[in-house]
């Protein structure tokens, strides 16, 4: 008798677990499938190369177009914010792991932890106040700075974890042969975590690719011409999706779907790269 009850319980558990899994997967799959179907329509209407390089269609023109300036903007934003954010994060992580008791280092650590809680739109507002207003124009640089603020705490925390995991025995080996503190960082700690540094950098890249809110006030949404310099206005794929998806013009909505497909594909590439690196990271 109790055997039957147990079997029923097991079956019920399996059914519930199955239903919950399906419930979680359905929206996930529907996002991917609808992005793929709608995005593919938009991209194939003009061809992949033209979609990636040409200008978006005029609102209400009914024509198709591409996301060239926005893609260029996203590439510039990602490059600049990663180039700023990764070295800065590494320096902060080195400071807080090498001098954990220094009051300045504790203060920085606290600030970085605080940034983790900061709503990303606030990062945009802060950069608007201290960069956009003085410069008199939104710009790729301002957008990149806002993205740097957003990625900094994530990348720093990741670097800190890795640097903190360098076994004491290896640090001591370095000190015992007469290396200075800087020597131990340079010759022992950093080489041991270099894959971790690479993964942290890619995590920074993936944040920079997809963030929208920090760019609302800082970037300028200039998507009908290519950005001429980083001090001038620009656009990003994410911002284009946000704006075009809410437009009452089907042709712009379609471009938004195509842009979403591009974003999804670039995420796939970055997470694949992270995955490949993580496999090689020695814990």
């Amino acid at each position: 008798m109790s055997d039957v009850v147990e079997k029923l319980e097991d079956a019920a558990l399996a059914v519930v677990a199955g239903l919950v899994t399906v419930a979680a997967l359905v929206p996930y799959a529907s996002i991917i499938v609808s992005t793929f179907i709608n995005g593919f329509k938009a991209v194939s209407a003009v061809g992949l190369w033209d979609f990636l390089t040409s200008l978006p269609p005029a609102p209400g023109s009914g024509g198709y177009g591409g996301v060239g300036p926005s893609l260029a903007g996203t590439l510039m934003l990602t490059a600049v914010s990663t180039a700023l954010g990764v070295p800065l994060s590494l320096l902060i992580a080195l400071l807080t792991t090498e001098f954990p008791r220094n009051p300045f280092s504790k203060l920085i650590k606290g600030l970085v932890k605080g940034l983790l809680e900061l709503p990303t739109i606030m990062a945009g507002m802060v950069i608007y106040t201290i960069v956009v207003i003085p410069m008199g124009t939104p710009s790729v640089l301002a957008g990149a700075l806002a993205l740097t603020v957003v990625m900094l705490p994530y990348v720093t925390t990741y670097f800190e974890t890795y640097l903190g995991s360098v076994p004491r025995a290896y640090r001591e080996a370095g000190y015992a042969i007469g290396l200075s503190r800087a020597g131990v960082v340079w010759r022992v700690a950093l080489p041991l975590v270099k894959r971790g540094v690479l993964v942290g950098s890619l995590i920074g890249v993936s944040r920079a690719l997809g963030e929208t809110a920090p760019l609302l006030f800082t970037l300028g949404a200039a998507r009908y011409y290519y950005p001429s310099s980083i001090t001038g206005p620009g656009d990003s794929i994410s911002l284009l999706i946000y704006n075009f998806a809410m437009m009452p013009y089907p042709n712009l909505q379609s471009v938004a779907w195509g842009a979403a497909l591009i974003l999804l594909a670039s995420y796939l590439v970055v997470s694949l790269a992270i995955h490949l690196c993580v496999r090689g990271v020695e814990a």
Partner: protein
Amino acid sequence: MRHAVLIEDLRVRLNGKEVLKGVSLRVPEGAVTVILGPSGVGKSTLLRTINRLVELNPDASVEGRVEVLGVDAYATDPYKLRRRVGMVFQIPNPLPHLSIYWNVALAAKVCGVAKRKDELNRVVEWALRKAMLWEEVKDRLRDPPTKLSGGQQQRLCLARALAMKPKLLLLDEPTANIDVENTELIERALRDLVREDGTTVLLVTHMPDQALRVGDYVAVMYDGRVVEFGRVGEVAREPTHPFTRKLFSRLA
């Protein structure tokens, strides 16, 4: 007799606990001195106080006089001090991201023993020969040290310390984690170093038989102090402290 290390009334606190409670010790030059004692008595801390590795613990406080190779250890630059003193740890710790060759060569380079490639090659070979490892690794110097056995890794660590051409070599239970054959090789290497190069060796161990095999002098530690010091044979024959008596009676 000249001394490589002179310690007077050394008191070391770690995380609020007094580990060394007034150690005094003179380590004779050009001989093997063995520090014997039970676990947790402060043997390792004593070694780490000599090359100031103890300071890597921010809660460590050191009082007393420590003179190493004629220099007041705590009035000099710790990095310069460590470049004159080799150290081998209890658990083999070759750097896994460097090749066998560079584990040894880096030490020579940092300490200014060799700069040019041919000089480095010579020092690396010399150190690996001294550590009884050359024949086993000469054809795979570019391999990572992780491909070596534990005992080979420990001899690599010995070679790394020797590449510094140190006048003083500190060893913290170097054979506690390795097999008998490797232990014999390391013990032989230590004897040769003293005989051929006049190196001063300070070896921490908890094995009295090892003290008898390799030691010239022995310092017995108990409860944070050195309670007995003398030539190994004499101390083993006529121990004065109860702990020393117990230690050597087991061997008889």
